[in-house]
């Protein structure tokens, strides 16, 4: 397998709106369809959130799909360091969002995809770049061209 160079963290809302095929966020489903042309890391906080948003059976399906694609999808079971969570909280992130940003930084991910507007605004100028699914698609098109 040729491992895609870009390694992105997709926030829970991208997974949920993508799986819902939500008409308000069509770029989420479109981006999920492109996974494989970029690598994805799913951190513990996102896994826990998906575990509450999906049923046990749906979650089993999710892991089954993910486990077949370990070349370009990585699950991370490491908790985020509390110091990093505090760092992002002190910069205006709500605690849950701070956990996601902390995961991204600890995992060496520079690119986080989310539709969370507050998150998008608070992370400006910090080590983790955050973009919407639509912006991620544009980046993907540029990278692959």
């Amino acid at each position: 397998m040729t491992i895609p160079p870009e390694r992105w963290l997709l926030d829970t809302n991208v997974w949920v709106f993508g799986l819902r095929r939500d008409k308000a966020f069509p770029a989420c489903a479109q981006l999920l369809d492109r996974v494989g042309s970029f690598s994805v890391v799913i951190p513990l906080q996102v896994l826990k959130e998906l575990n509450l948003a999906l049923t046990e059976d749906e979650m089993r399906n999710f892991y089954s799909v993910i486990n077949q694609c370990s070349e370009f999808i990585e699950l991370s079971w490491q908790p985020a360091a509390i110091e990093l969570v505090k760092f992002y909280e002190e910069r205006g992130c709500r605690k849950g969002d701070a956990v996601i940003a902390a995961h991204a930084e600890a995992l060496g991910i520079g690119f986080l995809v989310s539709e969370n507007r507050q998150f998008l605004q608070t992370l400006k100028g910090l080590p983790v770049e955050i973009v919407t699914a639509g912006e991620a698609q544009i980046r993907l098109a540029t990278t692959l061209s």
Partner: protein
Amino acid sequence: MQSIDDLANVITELEPSEQQALLDKVAQLNFKKGLHELAEKFRARLAREGLLNAPSEQVWAELHRIRQQIAEHDYPA
């Protein structure tokens, strides 16, 4: 429809880089197919529960609630 043996013969005629590109594409399509099946199952369940056409604000509220609940549990103040 070609048999598996025929397909394998075609594939072995490819250059190694083309074989790798083909395997990559198959993995990507398998993921896409699996995710589409999961999405259909998820949507069917939401429809049964009357939640499929819930406004985005309602979905956001639930996502925020879940996020804060987990974070407060894992990182108590």
